């Protein structure tokens, strides 16, 4: 591969991608070799499975079965009744997929926005860097829940607005991490070499910078997803997300907490699922990060730098194509 690097505009486009893909796969495998990674993935998959397969098995989640907070095992099913006498089981089975989809969409938006901002800031530097990063600083200064609440109360509560709001609040974190990582990559000889060949900056970023950032992106994805889930569920809890009577884990916790003493499952079941999901995604992202670190000198330095969130100063240890290639073998 290193030989190909001498004709970057022809070959390098494919080569780093393949290398990066392999590295991502290797990192994932590395993460899955750890107990932490296995448990994290298992927890995540269990909850995701319940959320997306549950609706197939759920009865009508809005059907009324008698009085509120009926004890488990009665008319309202195995987990008892909720605040209006609806089946907690049916509502738990049906109440997760919306949160997950909304969180995933918000995360995707955060990742796209954040990486574009971070990479452009790093590669362009100078004025663009200052403008973007100071904007990021300002956005980071606003508590995310407060920001989304404000947005929703001004415009009104809509699912798309929840996605946009949560995405916007998560993007600055992504931008910051990605800028640190991209700054390092941009300084490397092979990138400079490509630029020297007269390749337009957009192409350089797309073909040579972004592929090297895949590992920090993976970690960020998992981290942002778990933050987004918590945020989206909090919004539902506060009554600004999904509208009743649609089942939703966050809404359920809010609706049923007055009946905690009569039927604890109305709160406990959705709370356990949400907590499990958050813990699962967190553990998994942590496992990826650790897998990278534990691969020692061959590990992806961009990720290490990104994780330590330090700005890459000039005169850092020079890292060339060789080191990257070694890492991807």
């Amino acid at each position, binding site marked *: 591969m290193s030989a190909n690097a001498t004709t970057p505009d022809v070959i390098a486009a494919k080569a780093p991608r393949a290398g990066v893909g392999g590295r991502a796969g290797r990192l994932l495998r590395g993460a899955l070799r750890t107990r932490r990674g296995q448990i994290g993935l298992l927890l995540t998959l269990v909850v995701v499975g319940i959320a997306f397969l549950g609706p197939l098995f759920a009865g009508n989640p809005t059907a*009324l079965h008698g009085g509120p907070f009926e004890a488990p095992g009665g008319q309202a099913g195995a987990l008892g009744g909720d605040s209006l006498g609806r089946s907690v089981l049916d509502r738990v089975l049906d109440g997760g997929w919306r949160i997950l989809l909304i969180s995933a969409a918000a995360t995707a938006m955060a990742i796209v926005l954040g990486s574009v901002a971070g990479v452009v800031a790093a590669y362009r530097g100078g004025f663009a860097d200052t403008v973007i990063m100071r904007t990021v600083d300002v956005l980071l200064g606003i508590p995310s829940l407060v920001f989304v609440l404000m947005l929703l*109360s001004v415009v009104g509560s809509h699912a798309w607005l929840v996605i946009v709001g949560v995405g916007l609040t998560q993007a600055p974190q992504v931008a910051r991490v990605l800028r640190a990582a991209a700054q390092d990559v941009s300084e490397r000889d092979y990138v400079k070499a490509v630029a020297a060949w007269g390749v337009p900056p957009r192409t350089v970023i797309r073909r040579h910078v972004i592929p090297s950032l895949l590992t920090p992106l993976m970690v960020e994805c998992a981290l942002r997803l778990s933050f987004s889930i918590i945020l989206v569920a909090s919004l539902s809890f506060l009554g600004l997300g999904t*509208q009743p*009577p649609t089942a939703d884990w966050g809404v359920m916790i809010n609706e049923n907490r007055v009946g905690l*003493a*009569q039927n604890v499952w109305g709160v406990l079941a959705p709370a356990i699922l949400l907590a499990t999901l958050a813990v699962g995604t967190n553990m998994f992202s942590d496992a990826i990060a650790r897998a990278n670190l534990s691969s020692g000198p061959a590990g992806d330095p961009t990720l290490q730098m990104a994780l330590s969130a330090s700005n890459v100063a000039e005169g850092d240890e020079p890292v060339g194509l060789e080191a990257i290639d070694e890492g991807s073998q």
Partner: protein
Amino acid sequence: MSEDKKLNSNLDQGGVTRRKILQGAGAGALMFGGGSLLAACGGGSSTTSGGGATTGGGGGGEAEGKPVAGGVLRVGAQGGSNTDSLDAHNVLTNADYARAAQLYDALIRIDNKGQPQLVLAESLEPNKDATEWTVKLKKGVKFHDGSTMEAKDVLYSFNRIVKGKYPGLYALGPINMKACKAVDPLTVKLVFSTPYSLLEEALTLHWYLYIVPTGYNPKQPIGCGPFKLKSFTPGRESSTVKFDEYWDAPKPYLDEVKTINIAEETAQVNALQAGQVDAVDYLTAASIATLESSGQKVVISKSGGWVPFTMRVDKAPYSDNNLREGLRWLVDREQMNQSVFSGNGTIGNDIFGIYDKFYDKSLFPQREQDLEKAESLIKKGNAEGQTLQLISTPNAPGMTQMPQVLKTQAEAANVKINVTIQPTTEYFARSYLKVPFSMDYWPYAPYLVDVAQATLPGAPFSATYFNNPAYTKLYEEASATLDEGKKGEIVHEMMKMDYDEGGYIIPIFFPVIDGVAPYVYGVEPSVTGQALSTFQFQNFWIKK
């Protein structure tokens, strides 16, 4: 005791936050424990022990023995905010209602059965055409500053209400303040520009009509109520102490009432169980079992307060009465009552004012769910296949739950309803009295009093924009006649119009559910739709 004091000082210092309540109650126990656990490890004083659960349903109290003087009652009041005010004529939050009732009294008070009861007034006499009312006042009623309540104070109070356009204005009807006069220190002549035979009933909205001394300053809230102010922090708590010269001696029995704002029900219930407060108000049915199982008393009032669905009769598609009637036949009222209020509410029949002396249940067949009829009426109303947008807000018991139940029930008749629950601030800014299909919240008032506020054209809280000239004319006739028989007939005619073509669906009259510690007595169920016996604290007493 020392722990009790510590808890109290906790309350003193920062309002009540959920966290503080949990800390006070032994935080660890909350997670799975619910009621009894908390009670067992909370408090530390003897307050949580003993006391069988007593549920006052409908009207009976329990064998309570003779009232005992003394003691401090701590009330965990819901619904307060930073806008809390002690202004006698501008009560806003539910906590304001509780506090004002301690400080002030009015000419007439609504009793627990919804009937007018003379308080500061000795008698009310109309002239022949009901354009003038002569009010005789009780002798020797003292204000907290030691001055005596006189006719001029009544005029001053009513003037303040009219000038300030405070809510009590609507109860005073067509009053002509310029012509009103004090005949002697204990006699007031109230003059109205058109006949107003409804004055006595209208004055039952006593929480808007408190009598204050001439020159009243809301910053120093002086009234002739059973308690006088000791301290007040808006959004947090107030303390009032027994007024020794109260006109209705030996009441009040309590030495002091502390009214503490508690933002939400879970915190209220925990505070009561932990012995941090002695009474909590406006609970939902979900808390009944929790409190009873931990030995607290639960007072359930079947009230005449209503939480109607409102349909604007001037806005399509609701302008077609077929749709409105179809929706009325669609509701399964029993099921809604079960789901939302655990069956503690009273089934409604789309007519308000059920404790009015003229209300006769037998005149109107009770509407029950009839899906076929509903479906065909809705088809006739050209609303088939439409999605109806129902907007509500968490402002009162049932207002978020009832729309959900309606939506579910409507599915059975192939009617699609889209429910939106807006935050209260957004709702009052954008939707209240504006959107075509919504909900509203009313405490109990006699029928014609509500009519003046709700269903006449231009009424201040008309959410339905109901405007029927015949109906309006009937109201004018009713307010002009002193003939009770004739008035009754008119009321029945008007109720028929509400029933047949009104803009309200009134499936249930909500219950008011309060919790009090087992050593608190005198809290009777009341039909007014307000909590804790309409906040008549002078009747409460404590015997530990």
